[in-house]
C-alpha cells in the first residue's frame, strides 16, 4: 500500500500523545490514572516504531512493538498489584500521600 501520508504527520501525533501522557503523570494524583498515562506514553512510542517500520520497509519495528506490549502488560499487572497492596494498607491511592521512601 503506497501511503500518501508523510512520516512526520505520524511522528507529530506521537509526540503530542507522549506530551499528554507526561501531563497526566505530572498532574494527576490517582496512581491508577498515573499508570494509564504511562500506558499512553508507551503507545506513543509504539506508534513511532510502527511509523519507521513502514517508512524504512523493515519489520523489526513490529517485533519491537510486540516486546513493548508484553513488557507493558507485565508492568500493568505488577503496578496494579502494588496499587491494591497500597490501598489495603493505607486506604489511599494518592501518590502524594505515599512517601515512605522520602528521605
Amino acid at each position, binding site marked *: 500500500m503506497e501511503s500518501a501520508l508523510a512520516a512526520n504527520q505520524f511522528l*507529530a501525533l506521537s509526540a503530542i500523545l507522549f506530551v499528554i501522557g507526561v501531563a497526566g503523570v505530572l498532574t494527576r494524583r490517582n496512581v491508577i490514572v498515573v499508570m*494509564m498515562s504511562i500506558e499512553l506514553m508507551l503507545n506513543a512510542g509504539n506508534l513511532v516504531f510502527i511509523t519507521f517500520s*513502514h*517508512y524504512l520497509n523493515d519489520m523489526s519495528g513490529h517485533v519491537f512493538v510486540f*516486546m513493548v506490549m508484553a513488557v507493558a502488560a507485565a508492568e500493568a499487572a505488577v503496578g496494579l*498489584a502494588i496499587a491494591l497492596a497500597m490501598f489495603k494498607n493505607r486506604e489511599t491511592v494518592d501518590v502524594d500521600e505515599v512517601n515512605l521512601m522520602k528521605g
Partner: protein
Amino acid sequence: METLLFYLFATLSVAFGLMMIMARQAIYSAVCLIGVMFCLAGLFALLSAHLIAALQILVYAGAVMVLFVFVIMLLNLREKAGLRSVGDMATQLFFVVVLGVLFVPLIASYDAPSATKLAEGFGSTAGVGTLLYTDYILPFEIVSVLLLAALVGAVALAKTRMR
C-alpha cells in the same frame, strides 16, 4: 481516503487522550484510554501493520484495560480522583507546555524517510512470526520469562498483607 482516516484517528486519539487526563473519575479515564487504543489500532492498520493492529485491540483494549477496570472497581474509591493543588499544577502545566512547544515541532520537523514500496506480506502474521522465531528468538524467550515473573510477582504482591 487515507489522509481523511489519518486525521479522523489523530483527532480522536488526541481528544480521548486529553479527556483521559482531565476526567474526574478513574473509570472515565479508563474508557477514554480504550478509545485511544482503538484509534491507534486504526493508525497501525493505516501503516500496514495488520498483526500489530489486531494485537493492539486484543492485548491492550482487551486484556490490559480489563485489568485496569477490574482494579478500579475493586478499589471502589469514594473520594474524587483529585488533581494536585493549583500552585503545583500551574508549575507542572508550565513545564508540560514548554516540553510540548519544544518537543513536538522538533519531532515533526525530523527529516524522515519517505514511503518506499513495501515488501510482499509486510506486517502480516507470517512475516512478523518468521522474524520473531528466527532473528529475535532470544528476546522472545526472555519476554516469556519476564511475563512469568510478573505473573508470580503480581499474585505475591496482591496476596500478602504487609503492615
